[in-house]
C-alpha cells in the first residue's frame, strides 16, 4: 500500500477503510432508528392516518435495517459466534420484513396518490360552486335592481304593472304572467293584466276561493295548482303545464300611512300575481326565484302607492290652483266693488249734502217769516225731517269713512266745561218734555281745557245721552265725568283695551246712568253692531237707524278709548260708560292759527288789530289791498279779516 505524503495515518491503510465503514454503519443505524421515531411522532400529531398497519410494518422494516447495521459494528473486529448468530438472525428478519413491506407498498402507493387527486378535484369543485353562487347572486341583484328601476321609473299605474309583468317574464323566462286586481266591491278578483296573450280582460273570479285565501294569508310566494281558476290562463294544450306560483301584492291606501305607525297590512286589499313556468320544460321553481318574486311583489306595492300619492297630490295641487284663481278673481271683484262704493260715496257725499243743506237753510229762513199756524207746522215738520235725513246721511258717510279708516279726528283745544254745558242745554228740553231730570257732576280734578276732537266727542256724548233719554220713561239721567285713574281704566270684558298713561294725555271717563227700561244682558253685545236694533217694541218712536252706537264706538276707538254698557236687566236701567283719551293743552305743540288781516288803506286799524292778534298768539299776515290779499291767502290761513268796503269781486275771489 502506498502512503500519501500529507499525514502519517495512525492505523494502517486496511484499518482505515474499516474505520470508515464502522463510522458509516453507526450513522446509518442511527438514521434508521430515528426515522420511525419521527414517523410515530408526526402520525401521532396528525388526526387522520388510515394506514396504521403499513406504518407498523414499515417501522419494523426500518428498525430491523437499523439493527442490522448496528450489529455490523461488532463484525469489524474479531467477534464471537454469538454475535454472528445475532447478526444472521437480524438479517433474516430484515429480509422477511422488507419483502413484505415492498409487497404491501405496491397496493398502498396508488391509493395515496389518488387521495391527492381527489383533494385537488374537490378544491376545483368548491371554487366552481363559489363562482356559480356569486353569479346567481349578482344576477338576482341585477334583476331585482332592474325590475325595481323599471317599476320605479314611472309613476303611472298601468305602466308600473305592465313593466313588472314584462320584466318578470323576461328574467325568469316565464310562459305567462298575470295580475288579478280586486274589484271595487272587493268581492271578486278581475284579470287586469297579462303578459303574453290577450285573454278577455274582465275575466273575474270570486275572491273567497280557498286557493286565493291561502295565497293572501302569507307574504311568501306560494305554489299553486295549474288547474286552479286563477291559473287557467292558457288554453289547455297537450303538454304538461309548467309549475305555477302565486304571490299577493298588497295595495296600500294613503290613509294607511299614519304618522306614527307603519301601514298595517291588514288592509285586506290585495292583488294577485300569478306566474307560470313554460310548460313541458321540467323546470322547477327555485328558492331564489321565489324570493325574487316576493321582492318584486313588494316593490310593486310600494310603486303603486307612490303613484297613488302622486296622483292625489297632483289633484290637490290642481284644486288649489283653481281655488287660487277663483279667490283672486273674487278679491279683484271685491276691490272693484269697494272702489266703486268709495267713488259713489265721494260723489254722493257732496251731491247729497248740498241739496240737504239748501232745504234745511231755506226751511229755517221760511220759519222766520210770517206764517199761518198750519203753514208753520208744515215747515217745522219739513225742518225736522230734513234734519233727521241730514243726520242720517252724515252718519252713513261717516261710518263708511270710519270703516275705511280714512276718517281723521280734528284735534283742537276746547273747554270741557262748555262741552258738557252745551250737551246739557241740548238735552234738557227733551228731557223736561218727558219730565225726566238730568244731572251733571264733573269731578274737580278735570282739567278746564283738553285737546281732542270736540265735535265728535260731543256727537258721542249726545248720542249716548240721547239714547238714555229715549229709553227712559220716568226718573232721569245722571251724567258723571271724571279723570279715569288706572284702576278704573281697565274693563275685564275688553282685554285688548290697554290704556297707557302718559304725561301729555289723560283719560276722561263719562258715565251716563239712566233709570229706564234697561237692557237684557244677552243683547248687550249686539248694541254696538250696525243696523241692529235690540228693542223692536220700544223702537216705534226711536226712529234711529241703528247706526248711532256703532258710530260712537268707532269714534271712541279712534280716540283710543273704550265704550260699553252695563245693565242689570230689563226694567233696571242701564249705564253707558265710555273712556276717551284727551290731550292736555299747553303741553302739546299746537299749530298756530294764521290770519290774513286786511284793512283797506287805513293803516292804524290794521296795525292795532295785528298787534292784538299777535298778542293772542296768532300768526298774522297783514296786506294792504284786496289783490294782495287774494294773492297771499292760502290753505294755511284759517281766518281772513276784511273791511266792509272791500268790493264783492275780491270777496268772491277769496272764497
Amino acid at each position, binding site marked *: 500500500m502506498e502512503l500519501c505524503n500529507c499525514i502519517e495515518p495512525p492505523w494502517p491503510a486496511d484499518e482505515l477503510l474499516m474505520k470508515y465503514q464502522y463510522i458509516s454503519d453507526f450513522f446509518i443505524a442511527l438514521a434508521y432508528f430515528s426515522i420511525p421515531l419521527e414517523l410515530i411522532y408526526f402520525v401521532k400529531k396528525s388526526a387522520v392516518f388510515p394506514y396504521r398497519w403499513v406504518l407498523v410494518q414499515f417501522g419494523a422494516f426500518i428498525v430491523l435495517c437499523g439493527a442490522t447495521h448496528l450489529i455490523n459494528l461488532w463484525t469489524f473486529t474479531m467477534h464471537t459466534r454469538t454475535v454472528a448468530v445475532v447478526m444472521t438472525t437480524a438479517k433474516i428478519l430484515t429480509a422477511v420484513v422488507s419483502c413484505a413491506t415492498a409487497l404491501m407498498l405496491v397496493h398502498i402507493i396508488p391509493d395515496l396518490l389518488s387521495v391527492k387527486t381527489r383533494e385537488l378535484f374537490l378544491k376545483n369543485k368548491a371554487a366552481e360552486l363559489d363562482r356559480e353562487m356569486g353569479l346567481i347572486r349578482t344576477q338576482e341583484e341585477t334583476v331585482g335592481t332592474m325590475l325595481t328601476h323599471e317599476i320605479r321609473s314611472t309613476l303611472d299605474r298601468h305602466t308600473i304593472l305592465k313593466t313588472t309583468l314584462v320584466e318578470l317574464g323576461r328574467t325568469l323566462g316565464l310562459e305567462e304572467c298575470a295580475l288579478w286586481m280586486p274589484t271595487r266591491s272587493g268581492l271578486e278578483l278581475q284579470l287586469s293584466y297579462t303578459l303574453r296573450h290577450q285573454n278577455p280582460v274582465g275575466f273575474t273570479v270570486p275572491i273567497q276561493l280557498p286557493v286565493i285565501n291561502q295565497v293572501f294569508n302569507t307574504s311568501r310566494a306560494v305554489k299553486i295548482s295549474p288547474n286552479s281558476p286563477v291559473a287557467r290562463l292558457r288554453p289547455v294544450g297537450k303538454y304538461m303545464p309548467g309549475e305555477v306560483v302565486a304571490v299577493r301584492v298588497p295595495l296600500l291606501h294613503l290613509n294607511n300611512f299614519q304618522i306614527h305607525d307603519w301601514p298595517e297590512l291588514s288592509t285586506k286589499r290585495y292583488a294577485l300575481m300569478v306566474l307560470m313556468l313554460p310548460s313541458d320544460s321540467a323546470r322547477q321553481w327555485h328558492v331564489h326565484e321565489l324570493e325574487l318574486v316576493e321582492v318584486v311583489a313588494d316593490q310593486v306595492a310600494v310603486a303603486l302607492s307612490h303613484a297613488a300619492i302622486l296622483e292625489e297630490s297632483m289633484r290637490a295641487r290642481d284644486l288649489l290652483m283653481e281655488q287660487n284663481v277663483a279667490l283672486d278673481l273674487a278679491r279683484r271683484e271685491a276691490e272693484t266693488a269697494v272702489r266703486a262704493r268709495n267713488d259713489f260715496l265721494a260723489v254722493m257725499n257732496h251731491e247729497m249734502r248740498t241739496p240737504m243743506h239748501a232745504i234745511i237753510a231755506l226751511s229755517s229762513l221760511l220759519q222766520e217769516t210770517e206764517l199761518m199756524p198750519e203753514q208753520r207746522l208744515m215747515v217745522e215738520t219739513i225742518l225736522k225731517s230734513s234734519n233727521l235725513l241730514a243726520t242720517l246721511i252724515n252718519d252713513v258717510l261717516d261710518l263708511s269713512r270710519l270703516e275705511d279708516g280714512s276718517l281723521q279726528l280734528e284735534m283742537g283745544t276746547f273747554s270741557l266745561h262748555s262741552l258738557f254745558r252745551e250737551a246739557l242745554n241740548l238735552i234738557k228740553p227733551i228731557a223736561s218734555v218727558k219730565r225726566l231730570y238730568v244731572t251733571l257732576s264733573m269731578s274737580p280734578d278735570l282739567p278746564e281745557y283738553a285737546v281732542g276732537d270736540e265735535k265728535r266727542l260731543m256727537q258721542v256724548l249726545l248720542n249716548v245721552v240721547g239714547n238714555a233719554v229715549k229709553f227712559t220713561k220716568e226718573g232721569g239721567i245722571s251724567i258723571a265725568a271724571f279723570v279715569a285713574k288706572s284702576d278704573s281704566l281697565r274693563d275685564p270684558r275688553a282685554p285688548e283695551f290697554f290704556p297707557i298713561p302718559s304725561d301729555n294725555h289723560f283719560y276722561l271717563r263719562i258715565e251716563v246712568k239712566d233709570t229706564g227700561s234697561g237692557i237684557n244682558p244677552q243683547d248687550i253685545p249686539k248694541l254696538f253692531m250696525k243696523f241692529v236694533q235690540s228693542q223692536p217694541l220700544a223702537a216705534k218712536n226711536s226712529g234711529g237707524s241703528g247706526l248711532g252706537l256703532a258710530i260712537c264706538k268707532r269714534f271712541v276707538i279712534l280716540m283710543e278709548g273704550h265704550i260699553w254698557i252695563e245693565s242689570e236687566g230689563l226694567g233696571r236701567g242701564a249705564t253707558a260708560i265710555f273712556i276717551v283719551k284727551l290731550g292736555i293743552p299747553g303741553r302739546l305743540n299746537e299749530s298756530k292759527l294764521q290770519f290774513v288781516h286786511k284793512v283797506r288803506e287805513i*293803516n*292804524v286799524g290794521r296795525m*292795532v288789530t295785528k*298787534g292784538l292778534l299777535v298778542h293772542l298768539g296768532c300768526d298774522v299776515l297783514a296786506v294792504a289791498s284786496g289783490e294782495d290779499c287774494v294773492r297771499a291767502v292760502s290753505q294755511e290761513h284759517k281766518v281772513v279779516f276784511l273791511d266792509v268796503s272791500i268790493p264783492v269781486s275780491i270777496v268772491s275771489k277769496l272764497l
Partner: protein
Amino acid sequence: MEVDQLQRSFLEYTNSLFREGFLDGQFGQLQLLQDESNPEFVFEVVSLFFEDSERILNDLTLALDQQNVDFKKIDAHVHQFKGSSSSIGAQRVRNACIAFRNFCEGQNVEACRRCLQQVKQEYLLVKTKLEALLRLEQQILAAGGVIPMLDS
C-alpha cells in the same frame, strides 16, 4: 332821581288825558301791547295815526270845497277816520266823527263844514297831547328808566 320824576310826570299826564276824555281805554290796551318784542309799538301806532289823519283831513277838505258835494264819499272818509281814531283811543275825535256822520246823512253842507272844523280842532288838540306824551316817554327811556304801566 330824575327817572322817578319823569315817570311820575308821565303817569300824571296820562291820567289827566284820560280824565279830560282825550283818550279812552283803547289807548291803555295799546300800551299793554307794547313789550320786549315790540318796544316801539305805541310810537309806531301813533305816528301812523298822524299820517292817516293828515291824509283824510285833506281829502275831506277838498271834498267839501267841491261844487257838487259827494256825501257818500265824505261819509266813507269820515267813517275811516272814525275807525282809526277809535283804534288809537282818541275819544273826542271819534265823537266828533260820529256827529259828522249824522250831518252827512242829513246832507247838510254847512253843518258838515262846521263839523269838519270841529274834527280838525279836536285832532290838533289830541295830536299835541300825544306828542308831549311821546316826548316824555323818550326822556324816560333816555334816562335809563322803563315806561310805567297805568293801573286803570
